[in-house]
């Protein structure tokens, strides 16, 4: 009997050892799969004259975010297949899950998706680990890129937004091109013309005026027949997305920085006296004129409140207002106008941008076909069609922005084209590029919520700066 027990124990020990063996083997294999990198770009393999049919019969897999721009792309995919013979398979995810899906997929080291949508901030996260293909060599290779693609036609700030040297604090517009501009948004003020007319208001030219205007609308609008209307819709959820639209735009117009860079070392600057004063003012504006339950507000709520005539103004992406302003889209459609928003103390209209770019998986085995897709999706023909026949507004190309048909389409929206033209050259990424962007801005949003909740701005922002100094320095 004892022998039996002993044997069983020995068997279990052996079995445990056998089970541990693959564990140890896996551990020895390293992290995240094959990290072997080639110095040469796959773009160098493309030679001869440019040919759209070069990859005929190939299938490219795309990961897309649910967005009106995506709808315009999908609606036109048949043209791409007809032009190239390349089939595109795609998955579309809602924005709440999209970036988690993309992050997990890229970090797995597999090539489930050859091409995908991303923003400039994601380049800072996905670029350093080597997950993104440098598109520069593809753009420079005339065998891979058709002459009609016309790189000079892009607004320069947009092309620069996807170009980075992968060094924290280094300015954009240098190094590899990790994403191509496809669609973008500029952050401006949209307002309900009816409530402005009834209350005898006009758009604010300074931040103090904006805060006063927001409070005034919240106070007076219900008496003017706008039951439950508040002054200004701005984002407030505990997310990086709260910082980058209206808040960062106004922050930049005040000449404020998120980090200072000295000899490649980043120092958090959101606790400087000027930044603290501005953050207090922003929180006060939200408290006096912002939405109830602001701490849960994403762009969806901001946008729908403007459309539902619950908000008198919106300081967010112009597209968030546009989709409410188009005919029949909402109770406020036909009553929404656009304005560049308040100027900074020195007259600055520096504006932060959101850019929907397209990128390629560095692990893709179909890079040549993927590049043809990116070239087509960011090309004049598709983008013009998207802007004129669909809702792919805010053109990334100057030729589309200047196109008479596009202007005719947008002219019925009061102030849209004027606002776009006023801020287009001053709209760029106002953040300092660095890999901890999402940690920094999520923590920043949490700090903003605490200040809104009544905590002292100086101590909260000092705490934030201390925390971030150890992470990004």
């Amino acid at each position, binding site marked *: 009997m004892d022998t039996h027990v002993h044997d*069983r124990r020995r*068997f279990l020990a052996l*079995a445990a050892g056998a*089970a*541990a063996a*693959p*564990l140890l083997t*896996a*551990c020895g294999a*390293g*992290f*995240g799969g094959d*990290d072997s990198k080639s110095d040469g770009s796959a773009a160098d393999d493309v030679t001869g004259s440019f040919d759209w049919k070069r990859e005929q019969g190939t299938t490219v897999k795309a990961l897309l975010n649910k967005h009106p721009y995506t709808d315009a792309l999908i609606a036109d995919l048949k043209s791409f297949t007809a032009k190239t013979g390349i089939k595109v398979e795609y998955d579309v995810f809602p924005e709440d899950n999209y970036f*988690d899906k993309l*992050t*997990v997929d890229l*970090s797995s080291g597999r090539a489930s998706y050859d091409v995908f949508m991303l923003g400039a901030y994601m380049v800072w*996260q*996905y670029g*350093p*680990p*080597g997950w993104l293909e440098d598109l520069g060599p593809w753009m420079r290779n005339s065998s891979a890129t058709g002459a009609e693609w016309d790189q000079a036609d892009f607004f320069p700030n947009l092309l620069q937004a996807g170009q980075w040297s992968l060094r924290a604090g280094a300015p954009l517009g240098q190094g590899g091109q990790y994403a191509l501009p496809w669609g973008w948004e500029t952050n401006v003020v949209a307002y309900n013309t009816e409530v402005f007319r009834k209350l005898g208001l006009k758009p604010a030219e300074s931040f103090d005026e904006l805060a006063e205007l927001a409070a005034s609308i919240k106070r007076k609008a219900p008496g003017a027949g706008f039951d*439950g209307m508040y002054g200004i819709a701005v984002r407030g*959820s*505990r*997310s990086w997305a709260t910082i980058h639209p209206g808040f960062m735009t106004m922050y930049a117009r005040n000449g404020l920085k998120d980090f200072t860079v000295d000899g490649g070392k980043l120092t958090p600057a959101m606790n400087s006296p000027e930044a603290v004063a501005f953050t207090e003012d922003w929180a006060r504006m939200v408290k006096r004129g912002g*939405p*109830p*339950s*602001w*701490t*849960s507000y994403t762009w969806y709520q901001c946008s729908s409140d403007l459309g539902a005539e*619950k908000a008198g103004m919106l300081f967010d992406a112009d597209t968030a207002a546009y989709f409410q302003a188009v005919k029949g889209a909402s109770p406020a459609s036909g009553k929404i106008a656009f304005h560049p928003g308040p100027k900074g103390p020195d007259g600055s209209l520096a504006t932060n941008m959101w850019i929907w770019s397209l990128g390629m998986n560095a692990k893709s085995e179909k890079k040549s076909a993927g590049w043809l897709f990116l070239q087509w999706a960011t090309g004049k023909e598709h983008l013009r069609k998207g802007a004129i026949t669909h809702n792919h507004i805010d053109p990334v190309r100057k030729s589309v922005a200047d196109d008479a048909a596009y202007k005719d389409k947008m002219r019925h929206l009061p102030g849209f084209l004027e606002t776009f033209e006023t801020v287009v050259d001053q709209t760029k990424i106002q953040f300092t590029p660095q*890999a*901890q962007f*999402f*940690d920094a801005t*999520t923590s920043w*949003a*949490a*700090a903003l*919520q*605490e200040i*809104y*909740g009544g*905590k002292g701005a100086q101590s909260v922002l000092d705490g934030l700066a201390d*925390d971030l100094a150890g992470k990004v320095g």
Partner: protein
Amino acid sequence: MRLALRPYLLIVPALLLTCGILYPFGLGLYYTLFDFSASKPQPDMVRFENYTTVFTQEAFWNSAWVTVLYAVGAAAVETVLGVAVALLLHRSSLLGRILEKILILPLMIAPVIAAIIWKLMLQPSVGVVNYLLRPFGLGGVQWTDTPTGALLSSIAVDVWVYTPFVAILALAGLRSLPTSPFEAAAVDGAGWWYTFRRLTLPMLWPYVLVAVIFRFMDSLKVFDIIYALTEGGPGDSTVVLQIRAYLEAIRFQRYSFGISYTIVLWAVVYLAAMVLVKHLGKIQRRAAEVT
């Protein structure tokens, strides 16, 4: 020979299952000894540095405190309410049988969906909760805008989803209790409160404690309800350990550090489960003595 091998063959499925559980767990544990992150795909061995960093972070202690508050609060309210509902439903009637069917509905809804529904209902200006409270002069409550409000609202959603679970377990317990002690108590003229305190509750405790164990463990691991309702805000007021781990590992891509958070959470849950299960054994013995 075949006979000698049979016991070992019989344990093969269990062994495979155990390996299937232990392999990813062991791998996760191993990764916590490195500084593996998106910015460092070829990491260095840092031994226990991730754990020392976790324990020296103010954010960790804040999250641990919020997690405990949430778990204790949710499990306590669900237990009291669940037992109360079970006692009401135990009196068999047509209404009771109908209510039983309705009671199970929240359990059929994914918690994340329940949280989204409640998020809309708690919306201050258009939510139905404030609309119903308006006649009582309470229509302007900003449910999730303050730290306390956000935590209580999250617990309330948890209670809404999981109280039926406790009630169903307690009801099953009540229906399985022997009738003779209650008949004897009735003959002796014992009142309802006395019977409940001295007979029902002691005999029901093993069932209730099973429900408490499940709910407490689950509440310690909560993610979906809080993330959908508050995203961890305002500030860090509802960032429980699971949310912190998710942010670190997925959103900020500090994989090893994120896993360290989950390992610490696992240890907490494991220890709590050990204590509760040990307690369950004692209570079961005590209940057996009562019967």
